[in-house]
């Protein structure tokens, strides 16, 4: 049976998903992008194949996506992360997903799906990194905690979340430092930051109109605090997939399967 690979080369991490012909995820890997991202991608892909006991010749097609998509020449096709994310989310088994909120290392996206699971509209933040994964990393560093502790800090917040006015990463940094100095609890600050991001995301989402189930993915979706804040701001429940970082790579792998089909059609025609 043929296997298909989707490789999502993001600014922070490289995500690889391998599926079989039925579209079932059979292997995956998440690894930091680093500076030598091409070398790192190749290495991660090879070691994943090795670990999963899959031969390179079994891979029917590779589709690359994400910021580094065009520089990974080994791919058979490259698609934008919006299309790949849409396909991945539509096939995760949550039937009524019509809105996807994706927070990446350096951008925010809101994607609308139509009833057939195709991307019908989308919105993306502009040039700056406010409210993205990078913003959360910077925050954690300023508060001297780990990124994966942000969720529990939020849940332990007993006071009122502190208002963070700056949406600019650079200004927010100094704002957080001065709020810390003013004696606010780290827990309340973390919650405030999550609400600031969630408000920004909700504004972007409302531009497209939010309907039915909202799926939240991307690295920051593992952060429970951010999920809570987002549910509050959107005033509805938000579904987080089991492996939120992997949705886009998974979608790319599914597209790799389709790519092979259309190739066959083209040859026969």
């Amino acid at each position, binding site marked *: 049976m043929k296997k298909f690979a989707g490789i999502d080369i993001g600014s922070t991490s490289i995500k690889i998903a391998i599926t079989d012909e039925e579209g079932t995820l059979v292997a995956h890997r998440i690894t930091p992008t680093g500076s030598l991202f091409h070398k790192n991608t190749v290495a991660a892909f090879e070691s994943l194949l090795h670990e999963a006991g899959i031969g390179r010749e079994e891979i029917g097609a590779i589709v690359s996506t994400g*910021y580094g998509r065009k520089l990974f020449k080994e791919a058979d096709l490259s*698609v*934008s*992360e*919006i*299309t790949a994310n849409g396909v991945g989310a539509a096939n995760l088994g949550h039937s009524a997903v019509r809105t996807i909120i994706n927070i990446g290392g350096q*951008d925010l996206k809101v994607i609308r799906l139509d009833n*057939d699971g*195709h*991307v*019908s*509209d*989308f919105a*993306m*933040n*502009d*040039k700056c990194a406010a409210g993205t994964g990078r913003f959360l990393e910077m925050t954690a560093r300023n508060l001297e905690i780990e990124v994966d502790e942000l969720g529990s800090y939020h849940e332990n917040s007993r006071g009122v979340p502190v208002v963070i006015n700056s949406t600019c990463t650079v200004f927010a940094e100094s704002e957080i430092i001065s709020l810390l100095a003013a004696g606010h609890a780290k827990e309340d600050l973390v919650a405030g930051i999550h609400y600031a991001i969630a408000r920004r995301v909700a504004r972007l989402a409302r531009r497209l109109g939010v309907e039915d189930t909202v799926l939240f993915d991307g690295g920051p979706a593992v952060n429970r605090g951010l999920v809570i804040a987002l549910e509050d701001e959107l005033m509805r429940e938000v579904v987080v997939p089991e492996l939120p970082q992997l949705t886009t790579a998974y979608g790319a792998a599914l597209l790799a399967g389709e790519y092979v089909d259309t190739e066959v059609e083209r040859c026969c025609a």
Partner: protein
Amino acid sequence: MSTDRKARVSRTAALHLAMESEEMLRRIEGFPDNPVAMGYFYDLFRSRGKGESRPSGKGKAVGTLCVQVPEELIRACGARPVRLCSGAQAHESVGAEIMPAKSCPLVKATLGMLESGGQLEDLCGIVVPTTCDQKRKMASLLASHGYPVHLLEMPPVKDSEGARFYWQESVKELALTLEKWTGVRLNRKSVQAAILERSQASRVFQQLYALQCSQPAPLAGKDLLLVANSYFFDDINCWRQAVATLCMELEARVARGQGAGARQAPRILFTGSPPIFPNLKVPVLVEEAGAVIVADELCSSARLLHDQAIIGEGTLADMIPALADRALKPCTCPCLADNRDRERRLLTLADDYQVDGVIYQAFSGCLPYELEQRQIGAGLAQKGVPMLYVETDYSPEDMGQLSTRVEAFLESIRTRKYHKGVKK
């Protein structure tokens, strides 16, 4: 500004302009199978980017902004119109020192260009129509910097008879100023000749534009926009001949069934804030991603040359109102009050050119285009034409995000097309 500093500013601006122009031409020329006749236009922009000015017609130059200036009157005075709207980031950075950060990059760049003394062929005056607030305010700034400026008063609506009368009076005022600036009196013969000259140019442009209806379209939009853009400054007759030559080559392409992109390339209609060389960032990105821009609704292209003045009787008293009507009635600039006007035009174009989607560019700070965006997007969606709205400026920093958005938009068009095909 001190003379020393001014010299430095001009030098830096010229250097950056040359770099920007080269970079954009490299990308534009990098497409496979560009028409041979496009060479004329590539050369034109290359030498202009390097500051090697070539004679672009006889007589004094009159600077213009916006499409509403009836340029025939300038030609009839023996002068040549030069549209000053700049698309250079090199000029924008100079303008940024005098204009607020929130203002439109086009206005900033144009002011910056005039400040830095770039591309100024012996201007005897500048005609600024009162289109948007920023252009209006810019007129005062230009005047305070010592340029002779004529404010061409434009009504904010175009449908009422009162507006029409007001506008015709404004155009008459302009005629008087032009006579004063050039020292030449307008007469029946000279105006008629100028109308004819422009009509001929406009006719070849329409011919070129109509060729884009073909399946597949023979010319890439980046080339079409470049051709129209060179009308800003080129000698009108040289330009007309170059376009005619291009049309001949494209007709042969159409006969062979040769298109500018892949056979299944999505057909795009481009609208919004005008891409002006070297800022063809978004159009080039769209076509690098595999689509073809087959039509546009832009004041730097189709809106510039689509209409001709129709004169019944050849008296000066008839011709000037006819010129005024030509410059205002068909214009779909968002500075005019009716939002539906441009939407209707876009829907017609979408239909005529069988487009798969619309890309709507608004420069950050360009309120009129930002304001119309939602309504137009909804109107198009209702007719099944998807639209991508991008807000951008002259800086290259948003290229990564822009390319992701443009590619995703094209992918969604392709998927929809593919599934429509499957369902059939």
